[in-house]
């Protein structure tokens, strides 16, 4: 039923839009700029869930990603072509095969994971920050699963990951995230898009 409504609404929108264009003799709005970004993080960090939510897709069918998933994620002022890579051990080893051509990096971690896993995430992030094909790119680091009781705060993550010394001179943003609050996630991405648009180096900020 709601699918029917969605289709009808979509059609109404398109109908209205077409009328508007015809009446106002305006061409279509300029296309949004597109940026290619790679999204990595350990398995279970929540990469697929976050991206699905950003695309207004349900999360019922989500299973661990066993390869790559390229998605066009629309934002008001840009489209991000996100290359998301599975985080399982047998897939992680292939991450660097996908770095070439990226303009930004999204790194997702589970803030509520065990100390061991958090350390593994830190190591992966450090590797990515230093990788020749990624080291000059803007990073969006999402301390995900903030809704869980065991979640470390973004500040704690920032300290533990030693981002300030390590990522000095690079452009990065670290924000807490949770699929319970997608508005905040969209805002984080909005900031990230500003970094992508900005050709000059900006100081790191949290």
């Amino acid at each position: 039923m709601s699918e029917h409504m969605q289709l009808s609404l979509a059609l109404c929108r398109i109908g209205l839009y077409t009328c508007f264009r015809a009446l106002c003799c305006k061409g279509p709005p300029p296309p949004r700029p597109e940026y290619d970004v790679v999204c990595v993080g350990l398995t279970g960090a929540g990469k697929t869930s976050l991206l699905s939510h950003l695309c207004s897709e349900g999360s019922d069918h989500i299973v661990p990603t066993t390869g790559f998933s390229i998605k066009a994620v629309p934002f008001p002022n840009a489209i991000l072509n996100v290359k998301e890579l599975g985080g399982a051990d047998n897939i992680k080893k292939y991450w660097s095969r996908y770095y070439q051509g990226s303009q930004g990096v999204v790194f997702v971690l589970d803030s509520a994971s065990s100390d061991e896993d958090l350390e593994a995430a830190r190591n992966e992030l450090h590797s990515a920050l230093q990788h020749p094909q990624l080291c000059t790119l803007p990073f969006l680091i999402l301390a995900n699963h903030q809704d869980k009781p065991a979640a470390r705060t973004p500040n704690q993550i920032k300290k533990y990951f030693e981002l300030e010394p390590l990522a000095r001179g690079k452009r990065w943003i670290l924000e807490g995230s949770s699929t319970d609050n997608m508005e905040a996630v969209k805002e984080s991405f909005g900031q990230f898009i500003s970094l992508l648009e900005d050709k000059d180096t900006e100081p790191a900020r949290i």
Partner: protein
Amino acid sequence: MSYSCTSRGNSQDTSSAKKTAGDNPGTGTGGADSSGSNDSPKKTTAMRVKKGCNSTEAGVPMTSEEDLLSSALVTPEDVLGLQKITENYLCSPDDNIYNIDFTRFKIRDMETGTVLFEITKPPSTDKTGDKRDIDPNAGRFVRYQFTPAFLRLRQVGATVEFMVGEMPIDNFRMIERHYFREKLLKSFDFEFGFCMPNSKNTCEHIYEFPPLSEDIVREMILHPYETQSDSFYFVDNKLVMHNKADYSYNGRT
């Protein structure tokens, strides 16, 4: 009125949208602008989309199907020179030595996010047996039925999901060409690059509808299935798969 998309594996099948079909879904149609160009001098395996509209733009000589059918090896440059839809498949189903299997296809309107069409293939069935004998090409042809409203869309996201067998693929590339009668509407060239062994991968392209005159739109609606596409898949510049589709735009709700 609403969108109505159905997929038919062959002319006898009248499955409706969303129903699981036994055949390979159509290939993704779409292209995203690659906003950064690759400066690396060596051959890139990065994922990039090149948009070209005709063979002179792509800088390749024109080719004919007859030439390609007689040659042992079909390369990307060969198909970029084709001026019309092929009558025959340019490779056999057995050429798919990497066991690439398309398992899902979805189209959504980028402006509203509405899913317009989705089809999934059930877990791989036994490839030997009666089904094969009936029509070896059944798995590589899809017929789409859309309403006229579909042609008014500006941007759709087309998602393809595919599985890869045990051999890793270094350089996987798709070239898809859409024609109305003998006119090339749009050509897409997408390099997936590296595909991990035993992986399931999804890829969504944003497909921007080419500007179509009112005359052509009218003709496309009036002449169902004269809009057709060839999708060619290459591994290391050798053709391994060739899928086909045709389209109608005169559906009613």
